[in-house]
């Protein structure tokens, strides 16, 4: 056991699976000698060699496309896109091929690939480095979208994603890469996909979020506690497919729900959760569903990025509004 940050947990998970499964190949820009711009792959090329930890040319389309080819030929590619802002040319491959290879060949070929990318704001990065566009991927049938929010969930969910027989987009909230450390046993134990994690039990209001926003959400829950409001906190973790059972069960208990995400509001994953709550949990609701999200604006350059992102205060205010009903 050792205390590791989230980016170290990603590194640990990649290292474990490279060691355990010879079909795993890590690829991407600067992932080899340099160990990745965030050091997520540090030391892996040294340990596993340059064919298993492969530095690619600066070609995102290639990285995604060749991952599809490798996966169809029984390798398990784990590709890194340096920042989510550079991922968009890979959507051509993800949507047209990775997500549907199994379906369009009626199961003859499959695509067990992982596409990792750091995402989200809060580190004073340059333009195009801070967006949260996870909903774009969540709209694609046939893939999974997984977002960890702590070192242990990064380790366990990454292992599960690499072992999953279908394509997974694994988004790493880079603001919390080094925010906290947790003791992790490098035992290769995966966490389940397609399931939410209840991080805190509560009875008055359900707070639903994922990624870096879990930290503001938990801080808000702490604050609400001091006001005598008991908040249940849910980390969605796999935003596609969505585990609504856990969320519905919680809302049935609390009668109130606040959904928090850093991404823009319109057609965000929060809209889907709210819609499904309206469809299947309306009778449990004691108050309107609240959403605390990024605005429907361009992610501002970093001087204003903290104004864009939901804060614990905004979450507390939303929960309090909900309690007033």
């Amino acid at each position: 056991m050792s205390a590791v940050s989230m980016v170290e947990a990603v590194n640990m998970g990649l290292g474990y699976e490279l060691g355990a499964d010879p079909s795993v190949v890590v690829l991407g820009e600067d992932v080899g000698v340099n160990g990745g711009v965030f050091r997520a792959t540090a030391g892996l090329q040294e340990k596993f060699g340059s064919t298993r930890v492969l530095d690619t040319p600066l070609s995102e389309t290639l990285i995604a496309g060749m991952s599809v080819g490798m996966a169809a030929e029984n390798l398990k590619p784990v590709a890194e896109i340096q920042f989510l802002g550079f991922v968009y040319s890979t959507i051509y491959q993800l949507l047209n091929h990775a997500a549907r290879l199994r379906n369009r060949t009626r199961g003859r070929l499959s695509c067990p690939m992982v596409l990792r990318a750091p995402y989200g704001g809060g580190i004073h990065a340059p333009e195009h480095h801070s967006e949260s566009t996870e909903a774009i991927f969540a709209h694609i049938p046939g893939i999974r979208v997984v977002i960890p929010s702590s070192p242990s969930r990064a380790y366990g969910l990454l292992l599960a994603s690499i072992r999953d027989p279908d394509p997974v987009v694994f988004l790493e909230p880079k603001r919390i890469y080094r925010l906290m450390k947790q003791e992790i046993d490098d035992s290769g134990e995966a966490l389940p996909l397609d399931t939410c994690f209840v991080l805190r039990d509560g009875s008055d209001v359900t707070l639903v979020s994922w990624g870096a926003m879990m930290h503001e959400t938990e801080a808000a829950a702490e604050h609400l506690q001091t006001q005598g409001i008991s908040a249940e906190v849910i980390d969605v973790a796999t935003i596609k497919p969505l585990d609504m059972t856990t969320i519905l069960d919680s809302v049935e208990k609390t009668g109130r729900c606040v959904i928090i995400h850093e991404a823009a509001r319109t057609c965000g994953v929060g809209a889907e959760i709210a819609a499904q709550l309206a469809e299947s949990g309306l009778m449990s609701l004691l108050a309107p569903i609240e959403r605390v999200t990024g605005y429907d604006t361009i992610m501002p350059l970093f001087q204003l990025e903290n104004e864009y992102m939901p804060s614990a205060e905004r979450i507390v205010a939303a929960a309090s509004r909900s309690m007033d009903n």
Partner: protein
Amino acid sequence: MTKQTVKIEHNRDTPHSANMRTTAPFSAKFNISFIQFLDPEARVVRPLPGFASQPEKLIELYSAMLKTRLFDTKAISLQRRGQLGTYASSMGQEAIGTAAGSAMQPEDVLVPAYREYAAQFLRGVRMQDILLYWGGNETGMNFAAAKHDFPICIPIASQIPQAVGVAYAMQYRKEKRVTLCILGDGATSKGDFYEAINAAGIWNLPLVFLINNNQWAISLPRTAQSHAETLAQKAIAAGIEGQQVDGNDVIAVRYCVQKALDKARRGKGSTLIEALTYRLCDHTTADDASRYRGNDEIEEHWRYEPLIRLRKYLEQNKCWTEADEKTLVKTIGAEVENAVKDYLATPTQPTTSMFDYLYETLPDALSSQRESVKRRIP
């Protein structure tokens, strides 16, 4: 035509930085060779390769081309009668697929675009599979033979980076297999193509790129697609070998593809072959080519098409007669008819099949959608 003369020194054992040339002047010269054995009149213009001395081998190639031609004709008529969806014909380009399919080993992988029926048939894909696909049924891409081959690829050029991954997997496992990727002239304008050939060069991959340059990307002629004199020369920028071949001379295409596959199998890297041919058909059955090209042009190119050329050569060498032709047309015609019957008799997939191949195991989140379909259609 002259042989390629470019030679750029590489030493893969030295660190990358040792290969950097930042101060010394650097110039490269190259030529692109053009390979042809039979001219349009079926005259032998250079000594034929070994396999061409066996008439039965040439008849095999001819039969494969004829099968594709008759299949194409049938598929278009099915579409016109409302029995098939939009269909992309390979009329006039049969030599390319035939050469590819005939030169490949069964364990190799074909990564096609969508006019490679000749290659697919030679690799065991059934005619009814192709009809099922264009007829709107996914089971057509579940090839019983050709288990590792990629399905038809419609988004232009997107199959090319995938072929890099397939070839990488082969090299990674130190297998003696080769990936053959077929693409059209339009695909060479896309970034996917450049990213893929660039990578094939860097990693010395067992990968052959074969361009079906049929001169038209829907309505855009080859001259408007690129100002480069040849598409083959794009290989030079990627540090791989590039060459042109007469795409209507099946002997020449077969020869070049075989050579490139052998080279790749020996670990000597990737080749880009540009096969020059002509799209005698519309882009697809949904296209009307008369909007952008004249009949004169099409009529002229019927003179160069690959079937007539090989048949002429076989006849001149007393290997083929009118009676042989009639027998073959009859045999293949019956095969095509059987495939059509089989296709038309194949039941539509159950509605729930939309869910059944989406993931290996259907996630719980989708089970209620699948159940709702089941309830609606008992």
